[in-house]
């Protein structure tokens, strides 16, 4: 408490402290691994090798990271306006429908780079549309966006299953999925990018959406810190009463922020749907929307932080999968526990070491 207002240099706040939090998270995870009878150091080695050791491992890591960048940005944009969008999961799911409809419509006629911009727009539009009703309810009726977006996750899931099973399914097939897109409806892999670093991508689905994600990260930065709309969103997010004083329209700002947030979540679908499986399948989002909350939290709602946090979670996802394959004692659930610890220490307990840090820093400065 008493140290909360003492300023610390940025390299401590944004460099040292997150690193320390991460180390503690890994240390505790190590204890858990040791407790179930495995060697923590060997596990760590497997985790790192499994995620960064080979070209295809890196490819998978970056593939996951791409999805997390989109959903992390989605959560962050809403958060800056003081809104907690838990619905990125459902918005991404619907975004998949938008992307798939574009791909199905165009893949026969044009090459991928013509389809791509339409697919980006389609994914964003469908994601945004799915955020619109919760946004409108929040803006006009005061229904809390946390509750409504959770509900819309369920509604979205049901709707998508219905559409896939009854409408989009290929006649005569069992699997609830669309037909496979032709190359004109696929986003190509980034083997050339990997080749720059002398790496082979192999079967990993690392694709052009990664570059779209980076562009979006930059655009979000511009939006939040360089535009009038971003200024209004931040004012509303930090001080609703100052926003009223300043004449910033509450309803309009809330709705726009949520539409952008939903749009970014929707674009996440480009990665798995058009970049990896080349078709729309059930449950392709796979929790990436929720990981986005952790990523945004850990990245302090800043696009750069989000990209870094998304990479970390990409490593945990890919390395974790490899780890549980190699060390059967460490199950999928164990990996989730480790991810939980990272979220706990790097996100929720972000200020745990601050008081100690302040004392240490002041002592050093006095000396």
């Amino acid at each position: 408490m008493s140290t909360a207002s003492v300023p610390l240099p940025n390299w401590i706040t944004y460099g040292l402290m997150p690193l320390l939090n991460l180390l503690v998270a890994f240390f505790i995870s190590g204890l858990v691994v040791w407790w179930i009878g495995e060697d923590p150091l060997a596990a760590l080695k497997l985790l790192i090798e499994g995620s960064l050791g080979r070209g295809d491992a890196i490819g998978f890591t970056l593939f996951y990271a791409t999805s997390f960048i989109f959903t992390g940005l989605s959560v962050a944009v809403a958060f800056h306006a003081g809104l907690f969008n838990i619905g990125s999961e459902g918005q991404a799911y619907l975004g998949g429908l938008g992307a798939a409809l574009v791909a199905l419509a165009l893949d026969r006629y044009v090459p991928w780079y013509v389809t791509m911009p339409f697919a980006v727009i389609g994914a964003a539009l469908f994601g945004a549309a799915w955020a619109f009703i919760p946004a409108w309810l929040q803006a006009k009726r005061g229904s809390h966006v946390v509750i409504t977006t959770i509900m819309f996750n369920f509604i979205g899931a049901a709707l998508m299953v219905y559409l896939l099973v009854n409408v989009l399914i290929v006649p005569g097939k069992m699997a609830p999925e669309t037909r496979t897109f032709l190359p004109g409806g696929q986003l190509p892999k980034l083997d050339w990018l990997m080749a720059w670093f002398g790496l082979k991508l192999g079967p990993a689905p690392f694709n052009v959406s990664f570059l779209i994600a980076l562009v979006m990260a930059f655009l979000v930065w511009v939006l939040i810190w360089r535009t009038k709309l971003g200024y209004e969103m931040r004012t509303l997010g930090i001080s609703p009463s100052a926003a009223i004083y300043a004449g910033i329209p509450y309803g309009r700002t809330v709705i726009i922020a949520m539409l952008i947030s939903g749009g970014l979540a929707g674009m996440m679908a480009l990665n798995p749907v058009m970049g990896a499986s080349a078709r729309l399948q059930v449950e392709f989002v796979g929790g990436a929307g929720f990981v986005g909350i952790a990523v945004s939290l850990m990245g302090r709602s800043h696009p750069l932080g989000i990209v870094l946090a998304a990479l970390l979670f990409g490593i945990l996802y890919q390395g974790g999968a490899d780890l549980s394959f190699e060390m059967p004692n460490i199950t999928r659930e164990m990996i989730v526990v480790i991810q939980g610890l990272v979220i706990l220490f790097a996100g929720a307990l972000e200020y745990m070491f601050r008081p100690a840090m302040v004392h240490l820093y002041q002592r050093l400065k006095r000396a």
Partner: protein
Amino acid sequence: MSQHPAIELVGIDKSFGAVHANKNINLKVEKGTIHGIIGENGAGKSTLMSIIYGFYQADRGEIRIDGKPLDIRDSQTAIAAGIGMVHQHFMLVENFTVLENVMLGAEGGQLLAKGVSGARKELKRLETDYGLDVDPDALIEDLPVGKQQRVEILKALYRSADILILDEPTGVLTPAEADHLFKVLKVLRDQGKTVILITHKLREIMAITDEVSVMRRGEMVATRKTAETTVEELAELMVGRRVLLRVEKGAAKPGKVLLSVKNLTVKDARGVTMVDNVSFDVREGEIVGIAGVAGNGQSELLEAIAGIRKPASGEILLDGQPIANADPARLRALGLAHIPEDRHHMGLVLKFEEYENSVLGYHRDPRYGRGALLDLKAIQADAVEKIEKYDIRPPNPRLKTANFSGGNQQKIVVAREIERDPKALIIGQPTRGVDIGAIEFIHRRIVEMRDAGKALLLVSVELDEIRSLSDRILVMFAGKVVGEKTPDAGEQTLGLMMAGIAA
């Protein structure tokens, strides 16, 4: 009994980055005295007190309590050493009762029930001993600020404070509440407690302190026995030049009616009528002051005119245009500026950097960026200009607003609204927490606005301020305008009207 000073500071030094807030401060506060501390905005008063209270730690120097050096690393140490502090902005839990707030952090044991009955008894004793009566079961949010402040003092006393620090306690109080506070402080002193009082009001210093110390730009420049100094000397010590303690202005030359309020009624969220069928005009080139005890509808009236609160009925006209349902953005576009009463709640986003706040409400102006983008260079250049003109310290547009001293935060708001050169300006408590030099400056700017033909509406709990600035004074009581007076009306007359006694 040895006669060590209650507090002695030796060579206290504190910097925040490039800002040197306290420079080698030496200070002795004798036991059983009331010691005033004055100084310009940003002189380092609050910082120094926060160091004594363990909120900040000094980079160098020593604090001696009762002659013994003490390393105060946090507030707990300070409390244990018998130091209590009432902050400029209260630190109470709004939806707790008085009793719960007093006990918070000093519950005494795991079982609440035992502590509660003991605490209730102790609270009653303190209340009667010091004349600090408040209902122990009232919720904080239902209490007026004056009572909330009593709770803060009770909190400190409950923790058996021997040394009580008050940081600008009278800024939000009505004159009657302030008088009562001073009575309490005298009782405390007579019982052997030590009081440190920070204030910008030299009259208060003269009325109640035994000694007074003056800070300027981080340094302690003088300590005087109050009986041996004068207001003029103190003002000069503080600012480093002679200060005009009166407002100089010529006669008003009122023009056409610019702002007109007709049969305005405003209700609060619970439907209670706060402004009751009020009508008045403000002409170009005049300052209309609204006098009244806080809570008699002035705040709601200001908010209704500023478009923040929708009126229940009635009309507001700006230059002939009806504006009762216009939002603040449109009102600004029409040339109505607003200095809100509460800078922290409305006028500023404390987490923003200074330059971001310097355009709050005007950020859509093409001058600050064409199209959707903000032109940060233009905004910062604009902010620097205002910083220079209003002597906002430190002169750094990139500093987080929360890190400016209270008075400098106020100047940020005042500069923003006045420099827009609006047609009409509505002003709530323009000089709350502002030092005398800056008050002189702000008052001069307000009079200049008048002389340039603007219409100004002023609300202030400082009767002095109302009387010295206004060309006409309306008195509000219980939501109604109960009378109109000229500024030469006596303080007595106005006081009675404000109390609802005479019209």
